């Protein structure tokens, strides 16, 4: 399946992916309206400093430990995509405690959220990928880990 990958060689640390992510998941049609005056809570985040930076979002593991560990059974896999049933999540954050990539975050209400590849929010391709100015984030099929 296609996943989001980051090539840190090309990441500029511009954080645009975070804003495009937040916008894509806002459900609004205008970015300024959606994000003005808010503290964004994106599902992808840029780590690193000026010399090395990279964006991290869910790896959509084949054997997702977040899903196995979810005390509410709120995390599930659908066609390889690891997703959260938000209405079931109680915000215990066990998923955050177990994810070795740091891919999950609490949303504005304390409920866990993660990248779901923009499959349900009407963006088509992941918004972070489309918004990346330097093709540091790509959405593609890969085999095993390099």
């Amino acid at each position: 399946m296609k996943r989001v990958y980051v090539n840190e060689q090309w990441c500029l640390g511009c954080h645009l992916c975070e804003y495009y992510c937040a916008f894509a998941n806002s459900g609004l049609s205008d970015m300024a309206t959606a994000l003005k005056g808010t503290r964004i809570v994106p599902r992808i985040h840029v780590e690193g400093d000026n010399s090395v930076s990279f964006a991290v979002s869910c790896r959509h593991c084949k054997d997702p430990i977040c899903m196995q560990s979810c005390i509410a059974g709120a995390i599930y896999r659908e066609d390889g995509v690891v997703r959260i049933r938000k209405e079931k999540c109680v915000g215990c954050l066990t998923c955050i405690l177990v994810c070795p990539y740091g891919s999950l975050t609490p949303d504005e209400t304390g409920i866990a959220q993660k990248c779901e590849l923009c499959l349900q929010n009407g963006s088509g391709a992941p918004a972070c990928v489309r918004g990346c100015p330097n093709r540091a984030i790509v959405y593609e099929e890969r085999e095993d880990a390099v």
Partner: protein
Amino acid sequence: MGVELFYPEFEVVRNYDRCIACRVCERQCANEVHSLLESKGIMISDESKCVNCQRCVALCPTRALKIVKSNCTLRENANWQNDTIREIYKQAQSGGILLSSMGNPKPLPVYWDKILINASQVTNPPIDPLREPMETRVFLGKKPERVQRDETGALKCELPPQLELTMPIMFSAMSYGSLSYNAHASLARAAEKLGILYNTGEGGLHEDFLRYGKNTIVQVASGRFGVHEGYLRSGAAIEIKMGQGAKPGIGGHLPGTKIVGDVSRTRMIPEGTDAISPAPHHDIYSIEDLRQLVFSLKEATEYQKPVIVKVAAVHNIAAIASGIARSGADIIAIDGFRGGTGAAPTRIRDNVGIPIELALAAVDQRLRDEGIRNSISLVVGGSIRNASDVVKAIALGADAVYIATAGLIALGCHLCRTCQTGRCNWGIATQRPDLVRRLNPDIGCERLVNLLTAWQHEIMEMMGGMGINSIEALRGNRLMLRGIGLTGKELEILGIAHAGE
């Protein structure tokens, strides 16, 4: 001086209704124009630092930014124009030569725009490039005067070394050092994909790019940076740079701040030292000296590589070209006065040299008058901006063109003309690693390939319109051109008739 005598040239216009304070502009501006006013949570700008490179404008996700030319002007004066006065203020403050980058921006004639191209109607059918073969392949190099046959009567089919190009376009010299690693990688990869050549410029060849040797022209300039036997052998051709259109008669000066790491190693000079190319080659003070260097280089490469001699278009270019054609060189490259540069004295850039169109027409005709046009190929550069410029150049008599600025624009250059600062926000003319990273060669290569693929299609369309299905039938085919609004003298030099004739 405590007073800035001039209002900033540009204004940053921020639409606060749209600005979401994401700080992309701040992170992406190497000139530190933007910053967040934490206390109010809003973005502010220091416009005096803005060079109008448009990086912030391009990346602003809500299109909250635009950069406009300040309309704070001095009283109008056709003689003492704003720019003129600004330059005086600058020099009065600095005491130095004014430096600029990229090509001559002055409103001097662009002859390409005064030349029109023909098309077939009725008596001769246009050719549809989507249906019929349309050939743009060219071979650059010397062609012998006579065919030879062996004892059996068969033709001897050996030619002196030729450069094969899928289209009559090459990337002209831009050194590693003046350009970033990623810009060079983009050019090299695109040249390989396109089946054309790029040019190392005078900065030597980074070892990572040795693999693109078949698509590389290695340049030997007056500073001889990075020149060694392996370097000469690693390319497809060798170019001796005698001059550059943006600064004829001037050497080069790459500031020590750009001579870092790999650049220093590739140039074979210590880190931090200024790389100074002398105005002349100190072993070439005459045409016969040039001949010696041409043959030295041929000897060093066993006569396997064509030698290009690049000169700036100056007043007596026709005679110079004739001399070069007889020097043993295989290809002559002429760079017109609108050609770009990473840094040049402003006065030189804006006032020295002649337009490439006139130089090309004069040189091509002169070489034909002397009957030696086929013994040398002619490449022209210096602001070839689009496919029709290419078609016109070929029809005037060029074998191929060199492009550089157009390529850089494809890579993202916005012609802010401040390459000399080394703070290129587009990752092109800089060595700062965080800025270099902004140019992903995957994208750069793709965009260059796209650009030239598009140009090739356009060239084919125009050729087809003229009923020509191979580029060699366009070369020197000046009947396909007509001048518009040109004087009799200009038409005479260009060797074309006026529209309507």
